[in-house]
């Protein structure tokens, strides 16, 4: 009982502290951001050049730790929080968010592939659909007015919060019979499960429906610059029936392909600024590294609740900002 109360207090206090921190930054920037958009000739710089890159580095570092502890991708935290509370325009935040998610996926990919956790045969068909649609999503996202994208982003983030709260996971889903498409593509495999000390055989079903959902996932990843792990994992695990570890690893690897196509669209449209991208990538990567170390001594469930709350606030902020209320 006491333990539950302590956990609850910890979550409340941490959340308030987190929010206060962001509200302060947001308030400081409410004026500078508005002032800087208006003039045709830029005003004199308000800060030394490294001020905001340093803030991004620190924030991304924190997000990197939290992302690992909460079991979510860095991009899904990065885009709503940075666009909602810092002065950067959503176009550049989405460009940076994609490169952040891409770099994380590229870094994780080799290890996951070598261990046989990320499955190339499972990833390739899904990646083709998602990466093609991500191009469309990126083009739509860059063509739509900012307030529309911001509103849709807010709604999407709130949807992700709902998925995180509701979605269950299945360690070894029961797939009695693989479907014809997955059989013809030979999407099946074996991986070693150390907790059970044995090899696990897996296969998938409902492949056409899964491919259909990757159309939506791709469009959303491109439009909002989010890594799409939050959507990939439930589709791979709950719909297709891949074991949770294969789903998580293949999802992470999939991002390296999906985000590549969308990242090129943002880059070719000028929406990638190195002064934002590099500190963010370095921060997230260092944070993820520390996060893995911290994971053994923290309670991920508490962190997960905290991240869901922060993501909910960021989603709400994006929604209100898009509607011109926030």
């Amino acid at each position, binding site marked *: 009982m006491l333990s539950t109360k302590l956990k609850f207090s910890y979550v409340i206090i941490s959340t308030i502290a987190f929010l206060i921190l962001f509200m302060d930054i947001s308030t400081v920037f409410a004026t500078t951001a508005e002032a800087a*958009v208006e003039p045709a000739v830029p005003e004199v710089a308000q800060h030394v050049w490294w001020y905001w890159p340093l803030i991004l580095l620190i924030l991304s570092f924190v997000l990197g730790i939290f992302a690992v502890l909460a079991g979510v991708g860095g991009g899904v935290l990065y885009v709503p929080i940075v666009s909602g509370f810092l*002065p950067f325009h959503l176009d550049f935040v989405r460009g940076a968010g994609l490169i952040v998610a891409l770099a994380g996926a590229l870094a994780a990919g*080799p290890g996951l592939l070598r261990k*046989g956790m990320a499955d190339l045969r499972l990833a390739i068909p899904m990646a083709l659909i998602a990466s093609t649609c991500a*191009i469309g999503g990126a083009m739509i996202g860059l063509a739509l007015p*900012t307030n529309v994208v911001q509103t849709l982003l807010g709604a999407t983030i709130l949807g992700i919060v709902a998925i995180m709260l509701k979605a269950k996971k299945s360690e070894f889903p029961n797939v009695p019979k693989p479907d014809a498409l997955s059989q013809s593509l030979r999407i099946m495999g074996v991986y070693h499960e150390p907790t059970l000390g044995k090899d696990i055989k897996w296969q998938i079903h409902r492949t056409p429906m899964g491919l259909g959902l990757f159309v939506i996932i791709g469009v959303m990843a491109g439009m909002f610059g989010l890594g799409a792990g939050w959507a990939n994992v439930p589709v791979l695990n709950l719909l297709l029936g891949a074991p949770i570890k294969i789903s998580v690893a293949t999802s992470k690897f999939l991002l390296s392909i999906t985000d590549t196509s969308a990242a090129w669209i943002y880059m070719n449209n000028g929406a990638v600024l*190195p002064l934002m991208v*590099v500190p963010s990538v370095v921060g997230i*990567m260092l944070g993820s590294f520390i996060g893995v170390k911290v994971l053994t001594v923290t309670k991920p469930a508490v962190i997960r609740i905290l991240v869901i709350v922060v993501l909910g606030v960021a989603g709400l902020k994006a929604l209100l900002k898009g509607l011109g209320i926030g």
Partner: protein
Amino acid sequence: MAQQATEEQILYANILNKGMLVGLIGLVVTFIIYGAGILKPVIPLEQVQNYWVMPVGDYLEQTGIQAGWAWLGNMKYGDMLNFLPIAFLSLLTIVCYLAIIPGLVRKKDTAYVVLAVVEVIVLAVAASGILGSGGH
């Protein structure tokens, strides 16, 4: 039962691993060159914060920066040099796919050869800039 990590997977992983390391080191090195002012940037460092608050279309219009692959011809500038490792990282997936295609062809894995070739085309089209560049 043998653990699953196919020949293509290992090849893909090895290329990705080396490429990712080169790309990330390049990202840090070029950023140091940019931040330390070793190469002069197109947009002065102090001025960038005045542009990242505006839509990308306004940014391109006000700075006169050309989007797309124009950075390739301007690598003498610190900020443009940073696009080299970013582009390198973004091209890695295409390289990995190209590397596994011969193995798939040898195995007569026609479906995956087609999927891999189409993926390379999709990514190459995205990278080429022919789908439009210049922001909204």
